[in-house]
């Protein structure tokens, strides 16, 4: 059985006011493979990430589960921390106990039970995780800007100034867009052309 570490985030009071994070961590220790489990105030913070990195090394963890916010928020943060701790970043699972739990529930007992269930699911899953490697694809270093108004012109000029080629497509016969139709512009009343 792989050695799993479970890290439960309080997110200040965002999670901890509804979910008993200490209990979730305690219950996680009963789950298969889990050799280390703890909660912490802000898992995404520097000390929080250090906690994960240290535990990987000191506890010889082979898999990591973090129960915190939505993966859209911090999946990359924790993947990187797991990678820095010496594991393949994909030997990690994230559990959302904020957006899909503490933010939408009031009943502490039920919410805590749900958090434990979600953590158990992730623990079972992470045991089956395989190391993954990102692939590479080439990049054509030319940009297309669609629209030649103030937004398109500014973008095109900035990209062009970094040294890359830009193709600017405008459906009217002239660039300028709405901006050139304007007279003076607020709040400085300078001309817009």
């Amino acid at each position: 059985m792989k050695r799993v570490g479970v890290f439960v985030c309080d997110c200040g009071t965002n999670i901890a006011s509804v979910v008993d994070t200490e209990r979730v961590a305690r219950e996680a220790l009963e789950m298969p493979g889990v050799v280390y489990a703890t909660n912490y105030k802000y898992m995404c913070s520097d000390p929080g990430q250090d906690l994960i990195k240290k535990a990987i090394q000191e506890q010889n963890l082979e898999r990591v589960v973090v129960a915190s916010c939505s993966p859209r928020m911090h999946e990359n943060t924790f993947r990187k921390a797991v990678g820095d701790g010496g594991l393949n970043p994909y030997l990690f699972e994230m559990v959302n106990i904020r957006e899909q739990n503490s933010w939408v529930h009031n009943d502490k007992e039920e919410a805590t039970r749900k958090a434990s269930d979600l953590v158990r699911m992730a623990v079972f899953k992470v045991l089956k995780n395989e190391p993954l490697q990102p692939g590479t694809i080439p990049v054509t270093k030319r940009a297309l800007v669609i629209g030649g108004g103030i937004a398109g012109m500014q973008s095109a000029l900035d990209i062009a100034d970094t040294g890359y080629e830009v193709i600017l497509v405008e459906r009217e016969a002239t660039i300028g867009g709405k901006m050139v139709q304007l007279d003076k512009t607020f709040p400085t009343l300078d001309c817009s052309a």
Partner: protein
Amino acid sequence: MVAVAQHPNIKMYTYSEVEAVNGYIGNFTVTIRQKAKYVDWDKCNGCGTCETKCPTKKLKSEFDLGLGNRTAIYKAFPQAVPNKPVIDAENCRKLKNGKCGVCEKICPTQAINFDDKDELITENVGAIVMATGFDLFDWTQTYGEYGYGKFPDVITGLQFERLVNASGPTGGKIKRPSDGKTPQSVAFIKCVGSRDDTKGKTYCSRACCMYTAKHSLQVLEKIPGGEAYVFYMDVRTAGKNYEEFYQRSLNAGAKYIRGRVSKIYPRGDRLVLKSEDTLLGMPIEVEADLVVLATAMEPARGAEEIAKLVGFSTDKDGFFQEAHPKLQPVETFTGGVYLAGACQGPKDIPDTVAQASGAAVKVAMLFSKPELSTQPMVSEVDVSKCSGCEFCVPICPYQAISMKQVEERGPKGPITRQAAAVNEGLCQGCGACISACRSGALNLKGFTDEQILAEVDALCL
């Protein structure tokens, strides 16, 4: 504008539209349709003789929003970039019925080409910035109380801009469209189409409070003894130096009245605005010579179509959907496609410029690496299980799956058959193909059937 045209790294295709986009982040192939201009821009020196001689002179100028005229061969405005004309095929006598051709005869550089055709151009790019901007809400379709557009002296804020613009149809003098007289009293109505969920949009258009403050100031500065009335719901001036600017218009004498105008009707050659002053709690009537409507910004015409074509999503109002409202306001959910300006939501100029520079940095970030690393949680094919049924191909929203020929050992020597192949650059790991695969040959790395079932076991066992 000129800086764009002169920049050695910028290639401009004006009078052109993007017709097709294929590929994925770092590797897009774009088809651009360059519309027939009927003028060879390489030969044309932009002298403008053709415009002065064109006999079709009374066409409504789109640039001046109908307040001025243009010819059939025309530049939108004298400082156009590129400074070359096009022929409006729908209204050109020669292109319509073969008679005329005056421009061709008088053109000193023989640049007129009545046989010009649309041209398709293919370009390869690695990133796309969407900057398609906005259009104004068409109030004439819904606002019957303001006359459905039948009173010539009820105009939009953008039309007012043309009236005060020195290069506009009146040379910068504020004149009424109906009789060309200088209006003594100008009324402004804010939130026409915005913050109006019965007739228009629920959202606030953000720039109108400020440009209306500017317009009222211009009325007071340009018309001696002029009066400016502003009908408003709220005054929203969140922006650096914005509140101060609004105060400046108040100090100059703009009269702000809190209330919605319920009716506009003519009295003599003036217009009467009936409203309530909600601060006084009583009905109010204002006579004005000119009424200016601050109409809502909405996505530019064709925005929905181009979003589909490039392959990213729009929001409930048809604006382009950013990947995260706070943390990724420049990215879309499609890799390599970025947003700039009012195409993402109503915006004023400072915010537009800031976002446009943000989009440029995102593009530069993408280009700064020798190659892109792809996320590894993509679909993979077990060729031995794949029956080559092609069910997964149309299901894939990213066109990431194609069929390839595989050779394997058969009972009577090697045989060739087809099997699915996943392009890892295109695959976004959505998993749609996996549920479509009948033979269980497809699996999503990081979300394999085994892993999902382990999760189910965790709950059920």
